């Protein structure tokens, strides 16, 4: 009979160990899954940490950064002027930087032409009229190279200046056609 009681005791201990192991395993599975899925920090947070208020200078009470505008693009080093340029502005910047774009080439050619004319004149201008004509040309070019809006305004103002042309074929331009279509609908 003594052996039986020892057997019983052994069996009790074994069963208890087994139960303890089950509980431990349960917790391990929970923590392991949380760590794999990435929410370990949220699992069983300590109360003290969640109640703390952030008092840093550049951050709000929750510790988030105040600056909400995030930079989604990296800056690129321009090989020409060695400045940091945003990726979205890089192509237009290169155009101007290298002098291959429309406006920059125009400006450059203007400079060249003005330089050519100014080179022969060392102090005295041979033909002052030529210089005046060159300046007028510059002004005209500058006007032409203005913004499209300015161009549009310029053209529209020209149209308005001629009152006698009310029933002219200018009336059949795209804008009036659109108006007619709208009316039909």
């Amino acid at each position: 009979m003594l052996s039986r009681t020892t057997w019983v005791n052994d069996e009790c201990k074994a069963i208890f160990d087994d139960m303890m192991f089950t509980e431990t395993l349960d917790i391990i599975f929970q923590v392991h899954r949380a760590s794999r899925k990435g929410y370990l920090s949220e699992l069983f947070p300590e109360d003290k940490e969640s109640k703390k208020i952030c008092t840093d200078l550049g951050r709000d009470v929750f510790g988030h950064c105040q600056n909400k505008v995030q930079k989604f693009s990296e800056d690129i080093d321009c090989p020409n002027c060695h400045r940091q340029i945003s990726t979205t502005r890089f192509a237009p910047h290169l155009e101007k930087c290298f002098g291959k774009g429309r406006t920059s080439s125009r400006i450059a050619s203007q400079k060249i032409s003005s330089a050519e004319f100014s080179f022969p004149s060392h102090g005295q201008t041979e033909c002052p009229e030529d210089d005046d004509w060159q300046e007028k040309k510059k002004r005209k070019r500058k006007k032409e190279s203005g913004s499209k809006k300015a161009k549009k305004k310029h053209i529209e103002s020209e149209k308005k200046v001629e009152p006698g042309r009310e029933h002219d074929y200018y009336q059949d331009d795209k804008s009036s056609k659109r108006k007619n279509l709208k009316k039909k609908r």
Partner: protein
Amino acid sequence: MADSRESEADFKDRLHAKLQNSGELEKLKQTLRDRLQECGWTDSMRKICKEKVRASSIENVSIDDLVNEVTPIGRDQVPAEIKNEILLKLRAFLDEEA
């Protein structure tokens, strides 16, 4: 009722089967779970596991590693009262059988 020729293994199996079938095993499991939760053993174990995971430099800790490290700690940390309570209940139930 006791058959002295019954081997140890058979006897133990019989005990275990009785526990299982009567539902006593489940009851005791639940009791243990409740006691451990009340005394804070589960929370403490979770913290320890969390720290083990964070402390290890490996990106993904394996369950085996956690088991090997944490099980002995868990076994030691169980309060004696809970252990005794469960063992007593087990013994009381199984002594009837013996």
